[in-house]
């Protein structure tokens, strides 16, 4: 029975996507409700898997059919284990409420059939990615998720000016279609490298069946270790995919522009689907490399964990710092996503730093994925309502919306407080778990970076809430903040449910964390502590990490409160007094110049190379082949040709010398090889 639910949970949204054009014939409302119903069906099917978590002894369960038997054996199926069941429920549940929100948000859109098709395809692909029992089909879901994000980010493909993001003038804008293409290419770079890693994995393991990969990991990793540098190469290649999809440094630059699509699309990408896929995949791979490192004692496998942890920490810090100065509401939230995913990666990376940390790091990463899904979905949906209400994407054109959008304010505040890590909201518990893993694994540098990112997070979130809801309504706001109104009932309902989920998770946070730890511990390999392991792990007072987390929160939130909520401090005045602060501001506004560098080096470089090849090299080659060489031959054979050629039409002029040359060539060949 569970297996039927598992299959249906990813098939139903795909059927919904395929059926949307048919429902469109019955009217827009029917089409919308049908699309939501298919996503709802997926959520119900996923929920039916939850009882399995109470019986971890029954897991993992696989249901598969052969897809290819020759020349390689590949099975297609679903795998139910704690990770897939938990993540599938997060994906299906959150996506369902996002689609309910869309009923109101997209009601007036003239091309909404394309929207519903892509949304359901997105959800189905993500569920396929999560539930697939074979890494190849995880990759199929992975590619489809990328394709759907391309279609949805560039949804407003006509590139009308009102959908441009970036700016405000004089800063540059970017159109939705360019944003979609950027997302496709940047994540695609990671995808292709990851494909290389998966192929090498297959070469050594002889299977991509996930359970087989876990079971035989000590054998194939030992074979892989026999080739010098191979495990390092595979680590880098495999990690490239998640780094791209989850918008981690250095492939993070697509996500800030991914909010060019409709508001709920951003919610889906940031909370439930796209960016979570990378974290999920790292969680899938972690047990293999942990086995290699601690069971077979292959030190090279440590590289995977070190890279993951450092990529996560650097990204958390980098994106949070950029969020400090963001002027677009959804861009501020986008930076926060990049940063929070960094925390998840950090925790998963640290899970391999010692055998004792495996379950704790793993749980912290997945726990933060769950809490983040709720509060980020809520934040993005509320942001959609706000932008719709004020007809502006810029924070400085908002303000004072607390009174005109009271529900949205309440829901967004809950999401924001959770993002900041205010106790007892769920973000506090999960971030606390991540910070605790940093400290307990003895990685103080990583802890310091994560703590600094937490300070920034508190600051930019309070700043965002203050600029949107507090103070006086901005003058010259396009829609007029004063007359802004709440969204349609379905929008408010969806946000309310997510806000309730945030509250529930906050109350249940510690119990949930404990439950997840027990669940994952029952499935993760039991690892010995090998001889090469360093000193025992440090131990700290249980109150230390929460105290430090609250300290980080206060350091960040209090100044932001004074600047943007109480407005007793003037940020412009402080900025104008310090040249250093101005330089830092520019540096952060320019996104550390990374995007600019990529544009110059990769886009400009490849364009220049392509242009040189097409304009110079190819022209020279063409000239040599089609002019110089025939000239050379022609000059020597002119007399012969003149004798042999007929003065027929130009089509056949030179056939005679071709014939002569052919005969000579054939004779020479035959003589030479006689």
């Amino acid at each position, binding site marked *: 029975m569970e297996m039927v639910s598992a299959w249906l949970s990813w098939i139903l949204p795909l059927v919904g996507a395929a059926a949307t054009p048919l429902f469109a014939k019955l009217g827009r409302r029917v089409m919308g409700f049908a699309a939501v119903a298919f996503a709802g069906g997926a959520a119900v099917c996923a929920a039916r898997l939850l009882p399995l978590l109470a019986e971890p002894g029954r897991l993992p369960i696989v249901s598969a059919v052969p897809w290819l038997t020759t*020349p390689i054996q590949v099975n297609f199926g679903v795998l139910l284990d704690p990770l897939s069941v938990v993540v599938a429920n997060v994906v299906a549940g959150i996506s369902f409420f996002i689609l309910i929100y869309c009923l109101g948000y997209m009601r007036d859109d003239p091309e909404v059939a394309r929207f519903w098709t892509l949304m359901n395809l997105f959800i189905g692909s993500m569920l396929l990615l999560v539930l697939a029992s074979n890494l190849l089909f995880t990759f199929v879901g992975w590619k489809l998720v990328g*394709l759907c994000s391309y279609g949805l980010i560039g949804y407003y493909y006509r590139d009308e000016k009102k959908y441009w993001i970036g700016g405000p003038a004089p800063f540059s804008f970017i159109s939705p279609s360019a944003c979609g293409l950027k997302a496709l290419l940047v994540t695609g770079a990671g995808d292709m*490298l990851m494909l290389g890693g998966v192929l090498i994995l297959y070469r050594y393991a002889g299977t991509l069946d996930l359970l087989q990969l876990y079971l035989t990991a000590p054998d194939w990793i030992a074979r892989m270790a026999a080739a010098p540098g191979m495990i390092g190469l595979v680590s880098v290649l495999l990690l490239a995919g998640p780094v791209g999809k989850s918008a981690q440094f250095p492939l993070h630059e697509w996500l800030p522009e991914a909010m060019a699509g409709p508001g709920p699309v951003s919610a889906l990408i940031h909370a439930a689907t796209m960016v979570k896929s990378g974290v999920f995949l790292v969680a899938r791979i972690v047990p293999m490399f942990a086995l290699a490192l601690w069971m077979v004692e292959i030190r090279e496998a440590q590289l995977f964990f070190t890279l993951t942890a450092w990529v996560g920490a650097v990204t958390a810090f980098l994106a949070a710092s950029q969020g400090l100065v963001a002027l677009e509401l959804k861009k501020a939230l986008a930076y926060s996503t990049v940063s929070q995913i960094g925390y998840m990666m950090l925790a998963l990376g640290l899970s391999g730093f010692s055998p004792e940390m495996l379950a704790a790091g793993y749980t912290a990463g997945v726990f933060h994925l769950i809490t983040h899904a709720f509060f980020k979905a809520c934040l993005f949906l509320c942001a959609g309502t706000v932008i719709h209400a004020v007809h502006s994407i810029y924070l400085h054109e908002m303000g004072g919306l607390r009174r005109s959008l009271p529900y949205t304010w309440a829901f967004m505040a809950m999401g924001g407080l959770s993002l900041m890590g205010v106790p007892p909201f769920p973000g506090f518990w999960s971030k606390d778990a991540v910070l605790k893993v940093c400290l307990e694994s003895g990685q103080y540098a990583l802890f310091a970076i994560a703590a600094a990112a937490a300070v920034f997070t508190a600051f930019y979130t309070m700043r965002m809430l203050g600029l949107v809801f507090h103070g006086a309504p901005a003058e010259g706001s396009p829609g007029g903040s004063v007359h802004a109104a709440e969204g349609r009932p379905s929008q408010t309902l969806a946000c309310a449910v997510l806000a309730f989920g945030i509250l529930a998770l906050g109350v249940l946070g510690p119990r949930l964390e404990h439950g997840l730890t027990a669940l994952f511990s029952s499935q993760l390999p039991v690892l010995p502590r090998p001889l090469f392991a360093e000193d025992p792990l440090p131990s700290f007072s249980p109150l230390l990490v929460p105290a430090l987390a609250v300290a980080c929160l206060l350091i960040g939130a209090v100044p932001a409160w004074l600047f943007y909520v109480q407005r007793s401090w003037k940020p412009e005045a402080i900025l104008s007094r310090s040249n250093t602060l101005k330089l830092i501001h520019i540096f952060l506004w320019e996104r550390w110049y990374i995007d600019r560098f990529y544009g110059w080096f990769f886009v400009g470089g490849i364009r220049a190379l392509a242009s040189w*090849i097409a304009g110079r090299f190819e022209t020279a080659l063409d000239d040599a082949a089609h002019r110089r060489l025939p000239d050379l031959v022609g000059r020597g054979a002119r007399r012969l040709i003149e004798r042999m050629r007929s003065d027929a039409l130009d089509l056949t002029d*030179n056939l005679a010398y071709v014939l002569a040359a052919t005969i000579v060539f054939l004779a020479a060949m035959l003589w030479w090889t006689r």
Partner: protein
Amino acid sequence: MTDHLLLQVVFLPAAVALGIFLLGPRSGKAAGWASALVLAYTTGLLALAGKALLGGDPPLRETYFVLSPHIRLAFLADGLSLPVAFIANVLCLVLSLFSLRYVTYRIEAIYEGLPPEGRRKYYPRFYALFLLFPVGFTGVALATNLIVMYFFLELLTLTLYFLMAYFGYIRRVRIAMMCLLWGIFSAVFFLAGSLIVYTHHGDFEIARMGAIAGTPLAFWVIAVFLVGLFAKLAVFPFHVWMPWVHAEHPTCIAGLLAVYANIAAYIIVRALVLPLYADFQPFGAPILVLALVTMVYGSLLTLAQTDIKRIAACSTISQIAYSLLGIGALTAVSLEGGMFFFLSHIMGKTVFFSTAGIVVYVTHVRDVRGLGGLAARMPLTALLFLSGAMMLSGFPPFSSFAAEWILFTGIFERAAGDDLALTVGVIGVAAILLTVAYTFQAARRVFYGPPAPGLPGEAIQDPPLSMSLPLFCLVGLSIALGIYPEVVMDLLRPVISGGLPALR
């Protein structure tokens, strides 16, 4: 009906072509429908043969004409030749339907100065020539003999020459000549290789080429053949003809031009790798490098193009190299993946290129800088173009995804202990991103954004279904093979893995 099945497949289109030619202008528009009908019939025959083969029947072999003990007109439909002949025939069928409207437009554009009765002869002339393509493709695929294969190759070259000279774009006569010369260049090497084999072994039969295996001569035979076939495959630096030819020919045969070039990959496997596997080994590494260079070079060349026809042209250079990569790796999986990729590529290229043709047909603009915003008025065409882009870029569920997967699995199989293959494999996989870049960038330029100024707004709309529906069917076929690739692999396996004792 199934008596002399292969003979019917190869020569029925030729008979219809002759009929159309003899009837001349009197055949009128019926020429197009007659062509489609005969191709539908031969496609059905090939499907029947495929079903029988999958059902466990032995490969179909028909021998008709023995010129000498060593030159015989014989056809063989085994697991390797049958998929090639079938897909090539399907493409001919699709494009014959696509051309029903397109050729009328093309004739009006080229011969607008002629009176209507003067123009009328060109329509049947197109189809009389067009039908020689399926004759050539199925002939090459099913031939068992080097000389017969050479005959059909030359037939293809001549057909292309006349079609381009009559129905191509502005510099069509000059480029047709160029194409002919390159075709002859290629054929001369092919013929030279065949004659060398014959003079030493006394036989043209491909199945018996193994007799020269292990001799020093085998190396030179392979080398001579490869030079000719590389020119046909447009491998760097023999690719210089491809952008010209693709840019100037009528778009309705673009997909067939991709088959014309890519079928050389089939010939390499059929005539060189299978009979002379051990002797082919020294060529593996150079082919890998050459294929990689061609892939990257072709992609970069494509990125710089602004002519929508040249975009597709240059992408062919890059795409064909994938099949070659599979050949260079010389593992059973890579060879089978390479052949599957060949079939997937020609389907993708047909959709991509023909959709580009639709854009030119509707807008009369070739420069993508003068296009834009077409998706709003041509949604089905945009969907087709994106499907073509996805087929070329190897997105699931299209067959190219499965093909690429199998192909690279084979390459990485070789990569264990072979640093070159590993490097080529990793760069090759990463280079797929360039395909994504140029196909989706082209889609953005042509279909997204605001409508380009100067385009006649009212006239811009999706073409008639007779043009788009066959292409959608092809997209459907690619999806079907992507979801169920086993059907192709089951056919290829016995011939490639089963045919090579070293790989069993």
